[in-house]
Structure formats: structure tokens, C-alpha cells
């Protein structure tokens, strides 16, 4: 870019910022910005441990259904979150166990135990954007995200799923960090639960929509109980229904070990 161009664009930018400032003052200042909304979502208390039984219903575009049932234990800790998933249904994968240990600053450690093989195997894979068990959720969709990786814009406030919401758009800073080009989330005020999220694919087309139809306060924590993810391009959808849930169970460290994977005993 030439010198003059740079100056010119700087001038534009300055003018633009001024405009934004005036507009912001005029709009009687929403007390919160997009990033703060998402921070509130990520930072809301969710207990030290969580133990849930989740039914997943896969519905194809013709309406036929398939069931999956998984049980999940997770624990927050200083050195990173840990979680165990045990597959219960379908029967062919029953007692397959999956351990994830998050490591701050480097890749997660993952192990899987295949009962039919009787071996624990370490998994090194960047499978974030692939489907979880054939559902419409990817591994990334099910993980908490790093607030730093995106930029946020509070678009407006409106009602969605029967609640007053902030509508926040997030765009990844590095497009290669995300499987989506952008996401628009409707975050319920006060309880900081996203009740609807629209996902846009790399071509900018609306790709998937997640909606939460029931939220409950369990042991004081606001929790989405019934969630649906619909792939708007294929018509396939997945319902996630939490059947059992307990926060702050005392979970010992032995649960989150390779040994537990192998024996089923902590």
C-alpha cells in the first residue's frame, strides 16, 4: 500500500470510529459488549464436576431415528479439564471408554479403550471438525472454546426460544482455527445460556442451527437439557437430551486414568 493510501485509510478509520462512538452514545449504551456476553457464558459457574447421562437421537431427513446413549464425567482442575465418556448404546460399542485430558498450551491427550480389542490406545488426532459418533455435533461443538480466538460483535437484543437474548456474532481471528466462517449466538440474559446458535460454513452459507428447547436449574446451575442441532444443508438433525445430571459429585482422580479405561474401575 502506498503512503497516501495508508493515510487515507487511517483517516477513514478515524472518522469511522468517531461515528461509532457517537452512535454508541446515542443508543443509550447497552451496558455490555459482545465479548463480555461470551465471557459471561464461558465463565458462568458450572460446578467442579459434572456427571451426566445423555441420550442422542439422530434423525435423518426422512424422519427415521437412531439412538445413542453415553455417560459423561468431567472435572475441572488447575492443570486442565478431564473427562471420561462411556458409550452405552448401541450395544456394539457398549463399554467403549474415552478419556480426554486437556493440557493448557498444548494438544489434549486422548485415550480410548475398545472392549472388543481389550487394549487401551492413545489417540493423537486433530478430529475437532469431524462428527461425534455420526451426530450433527462435531468434537469442537461439544468443547468449551477459547474466548481469545474470535472477535465478537453484539448485533442486537431480541427474544428467542421464549427468552430475552443478546445476539452476538463471533468471527474467528484465524479462519483456519475454526470449521465455521462465523457463528451467531442468541444468549439468554441473566442466565448466560446460548439458546440458539447459527453456524455458517466457510462459503458463508448458513450450515447448522442449534436450538435449546428446555433449560433447567440443576443444583443451582442453569443447564440446557434438550438441545437440537440441525444441519440445514442435509436436513439431518441430532437431539441431545440429558437424562440424568449431577453436579459436584465427588470424583476421584483415579477415574480419569488409563487404568480406569482398561478396567472400568477407578
Amino acid at each position, binding site marked *: 500500500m502506498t503512503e497516501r493510501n495508508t493515510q487515507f485509510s487511517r483517516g477513514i478509520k478515524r472518522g469511522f470510529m468517531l461515528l461509532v462512538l457517537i452512535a454508541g452514545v446515542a443508543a443509550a449504551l447497552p451496558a455490555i459488549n459482545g465479548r463480555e456476553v461470551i465471557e459471561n457464558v464461558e465463565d458462568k459457574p458450572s460446578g467442579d464436576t459434572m456427571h451426566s447421562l445423555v441420550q442422542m437421537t439422530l434423525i435423518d431427513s426422512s424422519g427415521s431415528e437412531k439412538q445413542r446413549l453415553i455417560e459423561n464425567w468431567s472435572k475441572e482442575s488447575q492443570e486442565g479439564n478431564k473427562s471420561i465418556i462411556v458409550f452405552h448404546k448401541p*450395544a456394539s460399542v457398549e463399554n467403549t471408554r474415552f478419556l480426554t485430558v486437556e493440557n493448557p498450551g498444548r494438544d489434549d491427550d486422548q485415550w480410548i479403550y475398545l472392549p472388543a480389542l481389550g487394549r487401551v490406545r492413545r489417540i493423537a488426532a*486433530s478430529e475437532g471438525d469431524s462428527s461425534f459418533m*455420526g451426530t450433527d455435533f462435531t468434537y469442537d461443538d461439544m468443547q468449551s472454546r477459547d474466548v481469545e480466538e474470535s472477535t465478537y460483535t453484539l448485533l442486537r437484543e431480541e427474544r428467542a426460544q421464549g427468552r430475552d437474548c443478546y445476539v452476538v456474532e463471533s468471527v474467528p481471528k484465524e479462519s483456519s482455527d475454526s470449521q465455521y466462517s462465523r457463528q451467531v449466538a442468541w444468549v439468554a440474559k441473566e442466565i448466560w445460556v446460548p439458546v440458539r446458535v447459527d453456524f455458517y460454513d466457510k462459503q458463508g452459507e448458513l450450515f447448522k442451527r442449534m436450538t435449546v428447547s428446555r433449560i433447567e436449574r440443576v443444583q443451582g446451575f442453569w443447564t440446557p437439557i434438550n438441545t437440537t442441532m440441525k444441519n440445514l444443508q442435509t436436513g439431518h438433525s441430532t437431539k441431545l437430551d440429558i437424562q440424568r445430571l449431577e453436579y459436584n*459429585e465427588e470424583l476421584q482422580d483415579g477415574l480419569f486414568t488409563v487404568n480406569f479405561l482398561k478396567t472400568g474401575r477407578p
Partner: protein
Amino acid sequence: MSFGTRRPWLTIAVILGITAFFALQLPKTTLDNDVMNFIPEEHPASQAYQRTSDLFGGNLVLGIGIEFKRADIFNSKNIDLIRGLTQQIEELPNAEDVMSLTNTDFIEGTAEGMKASPLIGEDFEGTEEELRTLKSKLLSWDIYDKTLYSKDFSATQILVTFPDGLDDEQRQELYFQIEDIMQSVEDVPLEYHIAGNPAMTVLLSTNMRSDLVTLIPMVIVVVLLTLYLAFRRLGGVLLPTLTVIVSSIWTVGAMAMLSVPLSIVATVIPVLLVAVGSAYGIHIVSHYFDEVDRCSEDVGKDRRREIVEETMRRVRRPVLMAGLTTIAGFGALATSQVVPMRNFGIFTAVGVLAAVIVAVTFIPSILLVRKDRTRKCEDGEDGGKEGYHPVLMSLYHFFDKGRVRILILAVLVGVVSLYGMSLVVKDNAIIEYFKEDSNVRQADRFLRTKFSGTEFFDVVIRGEKPGDLTNPEILKAMDDMSSYLVEEYEEVTRVNSFADFIKRMNQVMNYPPDIEESAQETAASSGGAKEQEGTGFSSFVSDDSGFNSGFSSEGFSEGQSRPSESDQSDRTENQQSRSAGGISEHQRYLSPVDFDKQFTYGDFARLANRAYAGTDNVEMTGRRLIELINKEMNYRGAAYYEIPYDPAKYPPENRQGLSNLISQYLLLYSGSMDEWADDALEPEQVKMTVQLNTTGSRESKPIVEAVHNYADRYFPDGYTVETTGSALVKYALTNLLVDAQTRSILISLSLVFIIVAFTFRSVAAGIFAIIPLGFAVIINFAVMGFAGIKLDISTAMVASLAIGIGIDYAIHFMSTYHYERLRTDDLETVTVRTLGTTGKAITFNAVSVAAGFAVLIFSKFNPLMYLGVLIAITMFTSSLASMTLLPVLLELFKPKFISRPIRQKPKEVV
């Protein structure tokens, strides 16, 4: 003709109005050259294709072969280039799925487990070490062979899947965007080759457009020129040409209005209308001028009206008659199930009808409103006659001297032709539509020789319930079938199968442990278990291992015991007890191997010989030997590159257990198997893709049969097999073409027979009329057979077109012959007179039609070129047969219809 002549200005206005209306529709014209749309939607092959695409995603794959001129693919600069190209193509809006060396994942076993990572990671710098690793990764799984690298590593492929829903324009856009990207490469010397179904479809459409632009003006000029040479009068030439241009606009406009897309054969429609349709106008115009010429003084307005009305009275009937038979001939194609052929039949029939209507209304009106111009009466006819008489006469005398000779000749030609007919190859190879030296042909050849080809079909294996396709028995049978097809059929370059992925995961998960690590792992696991047992752990799911649920249990588990945790510790014993020789096969393979241990020559010889004992062919390649040695040593799990089938080799005790193992493997693919299976864990249907290095459709037939036979014989009960895919749609298309051709020939002949028989009130007349045509049709096939012209979508139409056009010659000849026959009993005089008058007209007409069609020689497509040549030949043979064989037969058999007056006057001759 009352309408055309009473209010000429009104007629002209109406015709021009209609023409303007249809001309406005022309911009709506759409093209469709997708072969998948050539067969009817309800055809089983089309339905199967649709079902498979719905289930496993589309498979319109464009192959971009990239051959490097400097160094091979294992070169950092070349890899950077591929990475850049891949990224650019991935960013194109409609590129659904892009596969290349730089964005493909690689799954490998490690001593600890499994690692899935890109073949070429983001941090790839192109060091010698990295390049060597890349090469060994590519060689370690044959799924990349002939897909991502060519045999000599000089070339790689980028495969781009076109989404199913794209229309012709969107496909063109995507194709040319990709071509632009490829063209923009500057600093790396390479050749690129783009082929595959989407490329063919796009190039058919673009070449067709340029064909239309060049061929239509050309045919108009050629027909104008031919007619001018015949009539030597501009007026006699311009008016008929105007009518055919008008009728072409109506026809193509109607197609646009009714959203009937133009396909490659539709290019012929305007050519055909110009060449054939002009005849109707010529009848009228030449009659008119004959009348005008007869008078030597100025033609006044009233006199002209009389002449026009007289002309129309005389000509209306033969023109309608000629139009009707032509419509019948072309219209027979409308019974075809081949969509472009059917549309061609319908709209050429409509076009001919339009040409007839325009001829009998528009031309007389124009003649009436023409500016008065005093003209000298010419005697053009004689001048014309002179040139043709001697030739026709000598022809006649030649045959007349030996009627027997002509019959023998006819029979001989017939017999030779029937033999030639048997040589006709029925094959509709779309790629062969393009000229031998066209880029797409060369690209196709490149991809067929260097890679796995551009043609393929899918095999869908269907069980009865979810999970049926994790049964090791069916998967093993599928895998065996893959090997069988590759070994038995040269045309099969690769078989990609769901089973390949199971084999790979089985290999990865049975990677032998390192000596040190396995020792550590055992120690760790045996130590840990006891310390923490029985404290503060609860599951929501009660199962037989006795954990109590925190909630009142409702029993989420199926309660069935799998060979899992409870029998965990017994597994080793179990294995041992099952194998008689003390150490089980499983244990032998999975015991850690010390790859660094001292190795004696004896060890090597023993290993090599043990490996060699596994061969199925005494002469084997080095590659195969390495494979066998790897297998023998279970190097990186090579002994497990198989479907887990034999319970003796695996922990589960039975096939059900192995089936569960396969579901658990699928879990590791985490739902990325959509392309191959209908469910991520318990598939009921899975897919195999058989890739072929062929161009045509007929080579796929024996292979498809082999698939079904193999499945019948070796697949367990409860599984059905369906073959589908583009190769099969093309095969179905070829069959439909053959059916359509036979049917349309029969229908054309019968309709023509009925029309003639009705006109002459005689069955015999019908028979005589179709003899020269039948002859021309047989010779047409003989030419195709001897010249090796394949029966394809356009050559399959030649016979019906020839019948529709050529019947006129027989009718003309028979009418005049009849007319003359009523005047004299001297057969020679009858024949001479007939040839003298009608012979000329027939020759004119045949030459102008043949010349018109001959411009198709300049088409960019082989089938259209052949169609042009073949029609030209049939015009020659059918007119010749009408003027030689027909009189001989009439003289020989002396049928009654030809010598008795008909109540209604038969068609008259111009």
C-alpha cells in the same frame, strides 16, 4: 389456399408476430449435456444412481492431473504449488469436496495407539527427511496408489467433487474457475490435464455453443448456394430459406419457452430444418416461377394472384404429403426413452410442421405483396435439364440392359451390408464425442494411464438391519471380491471399499508395542487398579459389574455381557487355551518385536522364505515381497491389514464379538465415513467403488456381471447387491439407444408405409415405396460397421431421419411414374419420362439435403460429424435406389396400383 392469399399483409404480420414472440424466448434457452439426464428419471439405472447419491453423497468428480516437468512430486517447490492450488480451489464457492496430496489425512499406528494427521502438515518445510517420510507414508497404504501419485511419481491428482444440484451454468462457472487457477501457474514447469464427468458435461455445452454459431450460418450458405446453382434465380432461393429460418426460430423458441434444454444432438435441429425444410418452399417457389416464366409479357397484379392461387392449388397437396411423411419419420424418434432423442423427435416434427405451415402461408403472401417488377420470361428449366438428363439416362440404360444384373447387384449389396451391419459397435462413449486431438480426450487418456481412470461404478451392499455391515463375513467377502476384480479384469484399476477402512483401522489398532513401553504399561496398569478400588464412583447405568447408580436405576444397559472388562484378565488365558500350540497367533503377532536385534544371514533367509511361502504366484514383484515380509513380522501391524475374521487371531470369541470390534473401529473414524456407510456405527448399507480405465460403456458390462455372480456365489445370505453409477447409466443409455433405434425405424417405416398405402389406395404401393428406403438404411449400417462408426446417441437417429427425408424420393418417383403410366403402356417411355422430370427434382433435393448435412463435418463432435456424413450417404443411396431399383422392380412385377387410376389424385410432382 384461401388463408394465405386472401389477406397477404395480415398473414405476413401474423407470421412475423409469432416469429418475434418465439425469438424473444430464445434467451431463455438452456443447455443440458449431463449424461445422467439423458435417460428418463424413472429408469431403474437413474433411480439407483439417485438413491446412491442421496445416501453417500454425489460422485461427480473432476480429476486434475498435474505432471511436473522438473523433479517429481517429492519436491518442496512442487508440494508448495499443490498446496496453493488446493487452497485456491477449496475457496471456490461450489467446490464441495477437494482432495489432494496436501489436504488428505493419514492414519497410522504407533506403539501407543493411533495417530491421525495430515499427510503434509502445516509445519511441513520440505526437508529431505520430510519428503522421504511423506513418500513412505504414501507407499504404506495402497489407497493412495493411482489416486495421489502416478507409478513414476511424476504426477499427482487434485480431485474436485461437483455438488449434485448444480445446473449447467454453475458447472461451467466452477470448471472455468478451476481452469483459470491451473492456468495461472507460472513459475513451476508442469502440464495439467482436466477430465472426468463434470469436464465432459461442461465442454459438451461450450463446444456445442460454438458449433451452433459456426454451423448454422454455414448450412444456410451451403443450402442457398446449392439452390442457386439449381434454380439460378435469387428469388427462388431466398424465400424458401427465409421460411426455414422462421421455422427454426419457432422450434428453438418453443423449446426455450417449454424449458426443454438443448443437448448436443439439438445442434442438429436447425441444420436439419434448413436442409430439409427448404424443400417445401422450393416446391411452391419453383412452381410459381415456372408459371410466371410461361408468359412473356409483364405480370400484372391480378395475373399474379391467379398464378399464386393456381400454384397453391397444385402444390398444396404434395407439400403437405411430403411434410407428413417427414414428420412421421422424425416423430418416430419421440417414442425413444433417451431424453435428448425424444426431444429431438418431438421438436424436429414440430419444426417441420412449422416449416410446412410457413411455406404454404408466408411464401404465397410474400409473392402477392412483392413489388411489381417487370421481368423477362426466362427459360431456365431447359438449361437445368440438359445437365442431368444424360447422366440419369445412361444410368437407366445401364440398368435397363440387365434388370437381372441390377437385382443381383442389389441382393449382393444387401448381403454384404447385412454382414457389415453385424459389425456395428453399440457403444455410447461420451468422451469419444470429442475429437481425438482435443484437450479433454488427451486429459482423459492421461488420467486413464497414469491414474485410476475417469470411469467407475458403485456397488452398494445392503443388509437387512442396522449393523449387518459390520459382520466380518460380508466384509471379508467384499474384500475378496475387490482383489478378484483387480486381478481378473485389466480394466479395473482400483476398487475402493468400505472394507479398506476397516482393514486399515484393524492394522492401526493392532500395531505391536515397543519392548520398553509395553513393559512400562503392564507395570502401570497392574499397580494402579487395586489402590483406588471401590471409592466414590458411581455410574448412572447399572450393569453386571456391580456399580450402583446414584439414581434409582432404570437399567439403561442392554445388560448383555460383552467380552469386555469382566473377562479382561482372563483374556490371555483364553487365547492360550484356544490355540493348541501353546502360544496363540494373536500373541505371536502382538508380542513386542525387537527390530534392532542382531540379525543373521540365516534369520534373513528363513524370514524371506517364510514370507515367500505366503505368495499366491511364484513370480512376484518386489513390492509384494516387502508386503509379505511386513506381514510375517507384523511390521507396523501389517499382519492385521485384513478384516478381523478369524476369532483365533483376535480377543473376541465369536463373529458377533468381531462385529462389535468393527463398530468400535468405526467409532474411531468419528463419523467421517459418510461417503462409504449409511451409519457411523452400525451400517446397514455400504459402498464400494470400482474404477475403470475404459472410455466406453460396454466394457463395464462383464465386470458388473462378475460382481453379481461373485456376490451370488460368495456373499452370505441376507445381503443384496446393487450396482450403480455413471458407467452404468451410460450402459443403460446405450441399451436404450439400441432399443430406441430399432423401435423408431420400425415405427417410421410403418407410418410411411401407411401414408403411402393410403394415398395410393394400395398395400403394394406401400411396400414398393419402402424398398429403396430399407435398402438405404441397411447400407447405412453397413457403412457404420465397415468404417467402425459406433452406434451412439446421434448415429442412432440416422435411420429414422433418412426414412423421413428419403421417402419423398420414392413417393415423387412413384407418383410421376403412375401419372406417366396412365398415359402410355410403354414402360421404357414411362421410366424415361419419369426420370426426365422427377429425376431432376429428386437429384436437386438429395444434393441440397446432403450438402446441408455435410456441414456437420465441421462440427467439434464426432457423432455429429458422422451423422452428417451418414445422412449425406443415405440421401445418395435412397435417391439412387428410388431411381434405379424402383423402376426395375416396377417393370418386373408390374403391380396393379401403378397402372390403374386412383380415385383421388396422388401426389403430384413439381
